[in-house]
């Protein structure tokens, strides 16, 4: 059993590496494998045409894709465990919408705040968007915590999360109505979601921060497992569950905001990947689930990004369309094939 898991982990790591290379290789401009290998592993200069494309566009895109895939998947897992709700996820609970509101407030009021969304914006601009996305995500999360503290029923919390999502989207819509067309244009582009809006230093920043938070979650395997038995059993296992729940919610808020700020809200990864990981390894034990979610998150995101580039040459599909088209059937399949989802 253990050996089977370890072999699976190794195989998935290899698959991710191959997906990573494929992501670098394919795109609107046709490049050769030689160019890919040379610019990734042997050259620091950006002399050739291909090298520029790879190092300035495709590499950051692939790194961002990996980071956001990991971040959203882990956030989804943390939310599902913390709320004891298999249908929790960044988009379902309105948290991504909260992030959008934060960014909308900042960007659509651009005239006042002086922040622009171009990929070349100054550090303060990036930083401002991350902070805005984080505050927005956290605000929604705080409402959800407040609600779920009063109402134990997971389904009710879910419905309230969805309602908050609608509410926040409506506010964003209203903001859009009153904003200048330039700001609106960049906000709508952001809202469509894309892994291609980051430069190399931004993508590496997201990666490092995501990995830092991911590694930190490995210190919480026991309390996360205890939470699977429910709030009171977790308390009886000796944990200060209130504080831990707050920590997990902060982690997920950070992970969601980190990705969302740079890529726009990305659908389905956060909800789908934990289910795929659980049903593949047939366990909810976080000592297996956390590494599995990290690997599957990176792989799933790279796969979606690759598929979005498949029309090739001029156009690429919106990433959200791809994640949903792949993600939704997977979740349905998991539910039908796997077990009943108990959400009473």
């Amino acid at each position, binding site marked *: 059993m253990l050996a089977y898991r370890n072999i699976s982990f190794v195989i998935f790591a290899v698959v991710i590496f191959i997906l990573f290379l494929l992501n670098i290789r394919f795109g609107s401009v046709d490049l050769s494998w030689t160019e890919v290998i040379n610019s990734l592993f042997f050259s620091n200069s950006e002399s050739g045409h291909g090298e520029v494309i790879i190092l300035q566009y495709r590499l950051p895109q692939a790194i961002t894709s990996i980071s956001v895939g990991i971040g959203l998947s882990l956030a989804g897992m943390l939310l599902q465990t913390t709320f*004891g709700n298999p249908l929790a996820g960044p988009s379902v609970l309105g948290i991504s919408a909260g992030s959008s509101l934060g960014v909308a407030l900042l960007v659509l009021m651009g005239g006042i705040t002086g922040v622009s969304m171009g990929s070349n914006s100054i550090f303060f601009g990036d930083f401002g968007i991350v902070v805005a996305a984080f505050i927005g995500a956290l605000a929604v999360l705080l409402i959800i915590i407040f609600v779920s503290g009063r109402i134990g029923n997971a389904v009710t919390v879910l419905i309230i999360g969805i309602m908050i999502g609608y509410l926040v989207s409506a506010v964003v819509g209203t903001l859009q109505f009153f904003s200048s067309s330039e700001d609106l244009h960049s906000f709508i582009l952001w809202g469509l979601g894309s892994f291609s809006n980051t430069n190399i230093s931004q993508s590496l920043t997201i990666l490092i921060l995501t990995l830092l938070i991911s590694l930190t979650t*490995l*210190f*919480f*395997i*026991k*309390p996360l*497992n*205890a939470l*699977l*038995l*429910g*709030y*009171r*059993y977790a*308390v*009886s*296992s*000796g*944990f*200060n*569950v209130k504080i831990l729940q707050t920590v997990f919610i902060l982690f997920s808020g950070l992970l969601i905001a980190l990705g969302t700020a740079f890529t726009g809200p990305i659908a389905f990864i956060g909800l789908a990947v934990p289910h795929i990981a*659980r*049903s593949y390894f*047939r*366990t*909810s*034990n*976080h*000592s297996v689930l956390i590494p599995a979610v990290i690997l599957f998150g990176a792989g799933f995101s790279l796969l979606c990004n690759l598929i979005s580039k498949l029309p090739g040459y001029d156009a690429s599909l919106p990433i959200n369309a791809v994640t949903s088209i792949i993600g939704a059937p997977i979740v349905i399949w998991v539910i039908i094939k*796997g*077990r*009943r*989802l*108990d*959400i*009473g």
Partner: protein
Amino acid sequence: MEPDKTLLELAGVDTGYNNSSTGIKVLHSDIRCKVKKGEFIALLGPNGVGKSSLIKTITGMLPSLTGNVLIKGKDIRHMSNREIASEVAVVLTDKISDTYLTAKDVVLTGRYPYGSFLGKVTKVDIDKVIEGFEVVGAKSIMNRYFYSLSDGEKQKVLLARALVQDTPLIILDEPTAFIDSPGKIQIMSLLDQLVNNHNKSVIITTHDTDMALKNVSTLWLLGFNKEFYSGSVSSMVEQGIINRVFDRDGVSFNKNSLRFENI
């Protein structure tokens, strides 16, 4: 002071809720009692009288309105969850809805108050868990998914979880509910075994009054007028306190048959 074998003491405890909008609601007031080592107690009372609230208060999940809950002489309010977890283990009525946890995973959480915060599971943990499954006679289902077990098997697994927590006191909220008659007898004799062979103190809440009267040594009774009684089974029966708490509309507790009967 006498050489004290008292594990748990309730010193003038009021149970109930202090809600900012609805105000203070006292369920039972001035509860005074002690739990000694190796004592087997049944907490009885009609539906909705506040048994679960008392259990929550004893386990530190609900603060007492007044008075002190003392575990080995220490006020529960000044104890961390981890300290409480090494003295009191619980089997609750809460449903565990996860579908990918094995019985072993569930029992392992009973070892979490010990060892490091990290995910590492030690040899001692594993040995304890296997021993726990052996004691409750459920070793064959150790690797099955918890959700797929019958209610009786689930209860045994949760009992094993409480057992591996290595606490002197185990509290079970309605351990025999939803379990068929042979299963109920199995659970009760397991608890009996824990008290007699493993020197544990056990408190259960139950609606299976006649079974409780046959097995336990001490009764705690809760009535609707905020009253609390405790004493040996025979004294509670003789003094008619069971009648005082339970009797209603033509149904009465018969002291001779130890059963509820129509009058």
